[in-house]
């Protein structure tokens, strides 16, 4: 069966520091991958999605970036964190088929101080 991992689970970083969040999927090949941010009271905001290695689409312009160095690995990065980057970051995967369903990882709680 498929599983999705995210780490770290929690992270506290100072403003201006770099960021790297990792997401990996097991048990499937060539998944679609997604990064969402969930801020308090604001639902889920899609940040990036990827349909293949090296193929990244950005939904919201900001100081974050994403990369997909391997088929089942999706990384969210920032060179300099802002206070507004605080939130709960969720990675998700899907098959990319007509009856596509997204499955979510456990999330990373990021606090920028």
């Amino acid at each position, binding site marked *: 069966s498929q599983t999705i991992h*995210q780490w770290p689970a929690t992270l506290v970083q100072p403003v201006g520091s770099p960021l790297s969040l990792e997401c990996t999927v097991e048990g499937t090949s060539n998944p679609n991958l997604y990064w969402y941010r969930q801020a308090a*009271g*604001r*639902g*889920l905001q*899609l940040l990036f*999605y990827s349909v293949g290695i090296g193929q990244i689409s950005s939904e919201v312009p900001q100081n974050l970036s994403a990369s997909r160095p391997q088929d089942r690995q999706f990384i969210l990065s920032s060179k300099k964190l802002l206070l507004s980057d605080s939130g*709960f970051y*969720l990675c*998700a995967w899907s098959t990319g088929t*007509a*009856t*596509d*369903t*997204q*499955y*979510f*990882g*456990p*999330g990373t*709680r990021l606090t920028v101080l």
Partner: protein
Amino acid sequence: AQSVTQPDIHITVSEGASLELRCNYSYGATPYLFWYVQSPGQGLQLLLKYFSGDTLVQGIKGFEAEFKRSQSSFNLRKPSVHWSDAAEYFCASRGGYQKVTFGIGTKLQVIP
């Protein structure tokens, strides 16, 4: 563009009472519809999904949802709520190969 509306941001029910969480979607054709549940500090877990066929869909944890095209709704129901059902619930829709659109979520509080 697609949109998903969850009109109730917060709902409180007594343990053992019935539950209905509302969801309305906006899409020209019949979308694919989903309900997810999120416990505090956790990721989202898929409760159920509707693609086609029977408009009453059964999910995990005793939940069901009914697709009503005439009302553009996909309300989530449970006949008897347990304290462990306290969580945040998200409705989502997808049209064809478009991206999934999530509602803003409904927080469910269960009182003894």
